[in-house]
């Protein structure tokens, strides 16, 4: 989980707004005005300068362009007020559906209401909007924890595990842990896996993760078989602590984000797994959903997601990818990392992706 510098605040006021808007579900209404013409899919970005969103955009266009749909977008430049104006502007220009990457899950609600009032379906992209009226398209964070634990169990089916978890103040940590425990709980109960240490790392900081793993290795006299780190930054800190004990590569190590340095470590055999959320796939899924909603059709594979305030929201949650030594090719094929960078410094046993 990449820790974003912006904070999204969920507030009880969202409840009231959600309740007000609740009566008008956009999913029953087709984007009538535009149904005859080529659909116009509007996108409101929160901060398009960040490299990451260009990958999402490419994913969206890979669906929209072949379908003959028009893509229009606006960039809020991290300003929630500008985002509202952007949404108004996009709606005025005409939208068959609108995809919103909210800067602020609460401040964006008036924009959502405006869209709903005009019968334009709304997709909350990647970041939640606290309302029952948006379709939430994101990665499944429970699956993140589950896939991470599964890959780690494959590498270290028995023994002593250390859990390096994210900041205790972030509720997402509990969601990741829930997924991990779906896999680990039976093995812990059976006695195969013993959790010998568990530490939350303030702000997910790599240097604090390094200190924690140093202390855990000292406490257990290096009898650690797996370090289940929740993101790649902390896995980098854990790797440094393991390296100082000559244990790098012999202890299973996890992460999340698909950081390039981590992918390189996996290629070198120094890390077991990182959970990768392919932004291009997410963009494509959102675009597909937008086209379905614009045509008044149901979204395939949609489930229900409970928002921070308890609203029941339709959702499309994608399964992330566990990247291990065996499937490293997926990140190269997706253009996420050049092969040369992935395979830099790989010696000895060379993974298939580097051959």
């Amino acid at each position, binding site marked *: 989980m990449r820790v974003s510098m912006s904070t999204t605040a969920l507030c009880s006021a969202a409840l009231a707004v959600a309740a007000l808007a609740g009566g008008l579900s956009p999913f029953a209404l087709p984007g009538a005005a535009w149904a005859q013409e080529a659909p116009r899919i509007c996108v409101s970005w929160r901060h398009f300068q960040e490299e990451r969103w260009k990958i999402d955009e490419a994913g969206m266009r890979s669906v929209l362009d072949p379908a003959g749909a028009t893509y229009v977008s606006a960039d809020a430049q991290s300003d929630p007020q500008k985002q509202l104006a952007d949404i108004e502007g996009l709606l005025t220009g005409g939208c068959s559906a609108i995809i919103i990457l909210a800067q602020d899950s609460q401040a964006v609600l008036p924009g959502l209401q405006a869209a709903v009032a005009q019968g334009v379906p709304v997709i909350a992209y990647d970041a939640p909007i606290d309302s029952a009226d948006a379709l939430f398209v994101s990665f499944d964070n429970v699956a993140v924890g589950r896939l991470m634990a599964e890959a780690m169990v494959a590498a270290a089916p028995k023994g002593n595990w250390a859990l390096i978890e994210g900041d*205790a103040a972030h509720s997402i940590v509990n969601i990741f842990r829930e997924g991990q425990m779906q896999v680990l709980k039976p093995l812990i109960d059976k006695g195969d896996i013993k959790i010998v240490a568990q530490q939350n790392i303030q*702000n997910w*900081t790599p240097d604090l993760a*390094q200190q924690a793993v140093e*202390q855990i290795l000292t406490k257990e006299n290096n009898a650690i078989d797996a370090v289940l780190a929740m993101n790649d930054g902390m896995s*980098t800190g854990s790797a*440094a602590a393991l*390296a100082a*004990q000559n244990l790098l590569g012999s202890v299973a190590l996890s992460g999340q984000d698909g950081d390039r340095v981590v992918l390189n470590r996996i290629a070198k055999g120094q890390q077991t797994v990182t959970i990768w959320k392919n932004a291009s796939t997410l963009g494509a899924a959102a675009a597909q959903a937008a086209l379905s909603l614009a045509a008044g059709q149901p979204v395939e594979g949609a489930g229900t997601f409970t928002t921070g305030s308890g609203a029941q929201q339709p959702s499309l949650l994608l399964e992330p990818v566990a990247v291990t030594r065996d499937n490293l090719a997926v990140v190269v094929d997706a253009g996420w990392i050049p092969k040369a960078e992935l395979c830099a410094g790989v010696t000895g046993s060379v993974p298939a992706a580097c051959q």
Partner: protein
Amino acid sequence: MAAGWRAAVDTRLAVMLLILALVWVGLDLLTGGRFLSARNLFNLSLQVTVTGIMATGMVLVIVARQIDLSVGSVMGFMGVAGALVQTDFLPVDGPHTWWIALAAMLAGGAALGALQGALVAYAAIPAFVVTLGGLLFFRNAAYFINKGETIAPLDSTFQLMGGGLRGAIGTTASWTLCALACAAVLASVLMSRSRQERFGVRPRPIAIDAVLTAAAMAAIVAFVAVMNAYKQPGTDIGMGIPVPVLILIGVVIGMSILARRTAFGRHVFAYGGNPEAARLAGIDVRWLILKIFALMGLLTGLAAVVISARLNAGASATGTMAELNVIAAAVIGGTSLAGGVGRIVGAVLGALFMQSLESGMILLGISSPLQKMVLAGVLILAVWADHRARKAGAP
């Protein structure tokens, strides 16, 4: 004789050492002998370096009635920038890469410190505001310059400055340094005595000097013995003193001399004690403030070298909230937030004290929110005790 002892020993430091010793013994008992193992003390000495290096600078900043909230962010920023120097501008593992990166990080840190110092001194913006801005600016700049992507691995020579498997000097060199340090202690005591005689000051009773010298030497020997007792994992080769710990020791000695023996140091304390009097005495106080912040920046750059070398990565989130640990170390070490009072060695002991508690609590498996709560309580308690001692008129 009792009066002689009081004059010879810094009571506050002695009390701190005593409390630290008690905490160590307590943690050792609770952890079944793990805390005072060579391995854990080796860890502890490495873990304290980053906060310790910056705390020596923070003492002068606080003594001069300023504050620097930006050090954690500047460290994170310089860590990423220094990693980029090694990977994007120079060949990793090139013959000159390590020292060019080192020089760039020191110079960059000093420049950013000087910039903030100039805003405080010449633009008359309060240091709290300037460095709060710095905290936000440089943390985000750390994300911005490489889009939040971690840079690794770093140059292998550069990595030695962070300790790690090869980053210690070995047993022979450690014992040699130990002998040199003991000789230096002895020489300085003898020189000080002969100086006192020359100027007609009656030297301290020889028994007191003998005991203090013996204690200092014993501490040095014990420290080196512990560092040598920790073996490279899976071998029988002693590690010796880690490079970053040597850096910290060098910084402490250098900063102590700077603070107590140079005009700059005296001006800092004079300004902190009474800014108006210092100004009237002809000290260029604006230039002085700028230099203090530049020095803080230089030390922050050095801390960035150690932390990124230790992590073997330039990562944007590195050192988040480190400023609070640094300030707390200085304050626990007896630096008064009212200005004018502070000791370099005290701040490093303060850092060691906090790191001991934190590392010890991880050994005990105490959860991180509880750790922070304990540390917060200790901070308040330490400042309260210090305040009481000062009021009671302890020297």
